């Protein structure tokens, strides 16, 4: 088979030949699909995912790293290399295979800018056009950049230039021009193929006289423009351009829809196109039928033209003063037009196709619209108010208003109310707005607001501005209805609501700067005035008086205040000074806030604080002590009885109290321990604050309580029986009681507001009605320790104060601080242990006061029931 072998030699084989099949070999099973595995370059299995989930897996079966999971590499500090590291690129985090031909970011060789031809990047151009539309300066699509772009020519051009090429020349070996041949030579040729040099020769018309020995550069060849076809039109069909059609700019009536793409492109090159079009040699002849581009036989390939359409409309009726000047704004789709054209248009027009900011309907209010439309203003509103006024007038005689002013006021208020109601209907955010309005009022009503420097936010709309000014001026006067009254009633509700919001906002925004500052700072004077929480107001009173004293240089009594001050025990120890108030608990509290208790201010302080009472009381006490010790509770009753007005209410009151007390006393027996603790407990500071913060209020309330309490004394007659029969009499109670009446007397005389305190005490003896034993012992144990050296006057004061406080507390506590008291009792349980040896007088007194205290807690209904029971007993 030599021929065969020859054939083999002749063949060229590609690829690896299959292994020849052996006959006896069993047919191999095809590998099943699930065993067909794909591995990547590194031998790792690759699993196929669905096309929608990303193609290949990542890592180990879609997990990280390896079979064992992610194995962290040892940490290596990159701190040292910090400076050297450039910005990380996405490539740094990609696998090698990603760069492969089928990777997600295939790397292929791309001509860089430098080597690229000067052909424009269409995508970039489009992007630029789009961005120009969104640019801050519309139409500025890097027009400037274009202008000042550096002269950049690709490397190819530069190379050519180096080789002697000049712009406008063709590329290739220099040629010798032959003298032009005669037409005869060019003889008529039929057929598809043109003679090889025909095209060249046809272009060499002008070079008539070329010397033999001169070579020429070849003619430049117009590159074929391969414009990709992007539309769905037929080949060569352009579609009807409405611009051309309507503006009538191009040609008289004839629109050629069949221009070649190349023509379209070469349009940009200007004049050449026309020449070419005319010399469209081509093949034209009957023998070949009708060419697609031939003029003849236009029936076959119909060229559309506007003249073919019968579009005759009757001319519109022109208004009289019509000026036939209309500037047609071409609408250009930047994507469909060549970027050069688009840019040129932009340059001429400023912007491509952007909506002009037009005045929206909502930017005008009804009056403006009304004015524009020339309507007459609505009368309804006026009529409404007229009706209302009439109704008011009708009502007027009934009300019998005295003066016209009153009437006007009523009318105005009614109006405002009506408006308010209306506006509320429309205002959904009424509360917020009103709070803002309040703020605005606060900001403007201040005396510091400067009228001359008001910002005019609505200067475009003079009417609105006028209304706003009115509003501001009213704000300054502190008018609360400033907003509503300054709005235009002729406007619709919705508009008014909107304007209201705007005004408030504007007022807040443009409020005078000093008022905004002043809202940030509180004035020192004010601080002084409002600093009523502390006892300080009582202490360091009357700064003005002192100031004047300082001015007169009358230092001394007038400028000095003296207070009781409780130094901490430890502080005394550290200073090697004995504790001035060894028994007092105040210093314990004082660690947290060492408010100096105003002490019996010496006679120096001309204005006395309420604390001064203690001193006076103690002074009085000296004279009355004998009396006080000897007399029983009866005397106090006698003393206080005359002052109290009598009445059934008083009786009832007393009964209530006693009834309560009896009940309490029964319960008290097991609570005695707890009650004892009440004795020495000094209420916390905030309690004092609560008491003294609102002194005026307190005074009034206490005075009202006075009346209530002072009524009590006649009670004993009424309640004697139940007291006697139901209660185990505790004789020592009177020991405590007896000490107070005189104090009460003193205070009754000198400090009317303080009356309530002792008089509550008075109620207690009345209930027990027990004979007073000698109180000397109780007094001794109960009283304070010896006064500190040089401290004479205040010997009694702490005790008294405490007592007083407790009394006051009763009024306060049953109002607000029941809980607090309870907890306090427990807290001081431990402390009180050491005082167990204290006389029973104090304890009983405690129970007593406590009884009264808790009695207040009992509900009114219960009380009533008890009173009824008592009457039954009687």
């Amino acid at each position, binding site marked *: 088979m030599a021929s065969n072998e020859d054939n083999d030699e002749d063949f060229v084989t590609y690829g690896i030949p299959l292994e020849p099949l052996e006959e006896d070999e069993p047919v191999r099973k095809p590998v099943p699909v699930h065993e067909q595995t794909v591995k990547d370059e590194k031998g790792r299995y690759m699993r196929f995912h669905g096309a929608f989930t990303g193609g290949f897996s990542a890592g180990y079966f879609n997990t990280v790293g390896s079979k064992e999971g992610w194995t962290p590499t040892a940490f290596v500090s990159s701190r040292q290399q910090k400076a050297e590291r450039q910005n990380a690129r996405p490539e740094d985090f990609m696998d090698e295979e990603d760069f492969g031909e089928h990777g997600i970011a295939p790397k292929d060789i791309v001509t860089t800018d430098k080597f690229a031809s000067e052909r424009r990047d269409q995508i970039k151009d489009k992007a630029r056009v789009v961005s120009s539309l969104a640019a801050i300066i519309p139409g500025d699509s890097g027009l400037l950049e274009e202008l000042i772009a550096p002269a950049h020519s690709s490397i190819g051009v530069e190379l050519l230039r180096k080789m002697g090429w000049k712009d406008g020349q063709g590329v290739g070996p220099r040629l010798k021009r032959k003298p032009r041949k005669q037409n005869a030579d060019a003889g008529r040729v039929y057929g598809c193929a043109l003679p090889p040099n025909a095209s060249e020769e046809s272009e060499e018309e002008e070079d008539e006289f070329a010397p033999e020995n001169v070579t020429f550069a070849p003619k430049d060849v117009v590159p074929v423009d391969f414009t990709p076809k992007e539309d769905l039109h037929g080949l060569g069909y352009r579609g009807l351009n409405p611009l051309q059609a309507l503006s009538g700019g191009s040609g008289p009536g004839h629109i050629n829809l069949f221009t070649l793409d190349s023509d379209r492109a070469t349009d940009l090159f200007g004049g050449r196109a026309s020449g070419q079009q005319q010399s469209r040699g081509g093949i034209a002849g009957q023998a070949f039928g009708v060419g697609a581009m031939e003029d003849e036989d236009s029936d076959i390939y119909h060229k559309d033209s506007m003249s073919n359409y019968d579009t005759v409309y009757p001319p519109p009726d022109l208004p009289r003063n019509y000026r036939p000047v209309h500037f047609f704004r071409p609408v250009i789709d930047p994507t469909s037009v060549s970027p050069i054209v688009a840019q040129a248009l932009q340059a001429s027009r400023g912007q491509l196709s952007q909506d002009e900011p037009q005045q929206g309907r909502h930017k005008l209010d009804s009056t403006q619209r009304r004015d524009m439309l020339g309507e007459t203003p609505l009368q309804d509103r006026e009529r409404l108010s007229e009706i209302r006024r009439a109704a008011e007038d009708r009502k007027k005689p009934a009300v019998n208003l005295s003066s016209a002013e009153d009437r006007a006021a009523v009318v105005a208020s009614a109006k405002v109310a009506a408006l308010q109601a209306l506006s509320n209907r429309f205002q959904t955010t009424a509360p917020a707005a009103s709070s803002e309005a309040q703020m605005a009022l606060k900001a403007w009503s201040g005396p510091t607001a400067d009228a001359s420097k008001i910002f005019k936010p609505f200067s475009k709309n003079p009417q609105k501005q006028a209304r706003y000014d009115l509003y501001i001026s009213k704000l300054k006067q502190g008018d609360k209805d400033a907003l509503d009254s300054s709005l235009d009633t002729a406007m619709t509700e919705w508009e008014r609501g909107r304007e209201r919001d705007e005004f408030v906002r504007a007022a807040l925004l443009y409020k005078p700067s000093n008022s905004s500052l002043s809202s940030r700072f509180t004035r020192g004077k004010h601080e002084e005035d409002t600093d009523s929480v502390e006892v300080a107001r009582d202490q360091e009173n009357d700064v003005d008086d002192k100031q004047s004293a300082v001015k007169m240089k009358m*230092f001394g009594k007038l400028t000095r205040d003296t207070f009781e*001050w409780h130094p901490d025990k430890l502080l005394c120890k550290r200073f090697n000074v004995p504790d001035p108030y060894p028994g007092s608990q105040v210093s314990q509290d004082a660690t947290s806030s060492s408010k100096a208790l105003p002490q019996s201010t010496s006679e120096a302080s001309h204005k006395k604080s309420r604390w001064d009472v203690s001193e006076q009381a103690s002074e009085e006490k000296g004279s009355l002590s004998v009396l006080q010790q000897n007399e029983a509770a009866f005397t106090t009753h006698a003393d206080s009885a005359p002052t109290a007005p009598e009445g059934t209410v008083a009786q009832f009151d007393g009964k209530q109290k006693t009834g309560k007390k009896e009940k309490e006393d029964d319960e008290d027996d097991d609570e005695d321990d707890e009650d004892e603790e009440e004795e020495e407990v000094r209420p916390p500071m905030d309690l004092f604050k609560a008491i003294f913060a609102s002194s005026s209020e307190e005074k009034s309330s206490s005075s009202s309580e006075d009346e209530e309490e002072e009524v009590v004394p006649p009670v004993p007659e009424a309640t004697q029986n139940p007291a006697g029969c139901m209660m185990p009499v505790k004789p020592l109670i009177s020991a405590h009681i007896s000490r107070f009446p005189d104090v009460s007397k003193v205070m009754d005389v000198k400090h009317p507001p303080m009356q309530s305190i002792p008089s509550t005490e008075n109620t207690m003896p009345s209930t027990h009605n027990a004979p007073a034993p000698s109180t000397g012992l109780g007094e001794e144990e109960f009283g304070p320790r010896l006064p500190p050296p040089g401290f004479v006057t205040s010997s009694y004061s702490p005790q008294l104060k405490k007592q007083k406080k407790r009394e006051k507390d009763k009024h306060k506590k049953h109002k607000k601080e029941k809980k607090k008291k309870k907890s306090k009792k427990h807290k001081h349980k431990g402390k009180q242990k050491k005082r167990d040896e204290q006389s029973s007088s104090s304890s009983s007194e405690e129970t007593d006061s406590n009884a009264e205290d808790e009695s207040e807690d009992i509900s009114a209904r219960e009380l009533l029931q008890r009173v009824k029971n008592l009457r039954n007993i009687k």
Partner: protein
Amino acid sequence: MAFPQPRPQAPQLPRHLLRTIDCKQAAVRAVRFNADGNYLLTCGSDKSLKLWSVSRGTLLKTYTGHGYEVLDADGSYDNSQLCSCSSDKTVILWDVASGQVTRKLRGHAGKVNCVQFNEEATVMLSGSIDGTVRCWDTRSRRMEPIQILDEARDGISSLKVSEHELLTGSVDGRVRRYDLRMGQLHVDFLGSPITCVCFSRDGQCSLSSSLDSTVRLLDKSTGEMLGEYGSLTLKLPVGKAVVQSLSFHPTESRLLTSMEGCVQVWGAEPEDADGEKEQ
């Protein structure tokens, strides 16, 4: 005594500039004699506290540990401890020899203007711009103050401690005297913000300077004014800048003035004057 006491001589004022020390710690906020007047402390605005010898003008130790400028300092009676306060709201107790911080006490809400030991250096009292005086225990390890005296309605500008009394001057225009022995607080209203207070040497009067550019001598017990000093007795040509602080020698007629970064020591024949003033 057979002989009457000799009549006291007219006070000799420190007229002569003895020494100028360049402290090299930025502006010297306060300069203080120690208890016996042999050493002086300078509080620098560079957060350091320095101890100097008065007689030689040499730097003995620098104490660093504050977080901001040091505003005042005091030495204990036995020269074993120092206390200083700073704009960083802390009060620091120093060990003199080692220069270490023994205790750093936080609690004030604002910068601490003044600090003083009591006589036995068992308590440090610090007055702050937050209007409180805090009494810090130096004996225990407690970091909380023993007591807080918050009667002042404005910042405490100055503070002095005597045996059993505490005198504070406040910007609210009041001089407060806390009497521990009596358990009383005496408040004298002077009208103008107080810049500095001190006791007279006999302990019977308090001297206070206020922003109305007067110095008032008040009777301690009654609050009556004994004297008002607006006129000059002595004018020292310290320099052209602001005298930040001055300190008078506890026994001799010697005055320290601090201006900018320098401290000047002024001296005269030994004679005592009215204690310490500050501007």
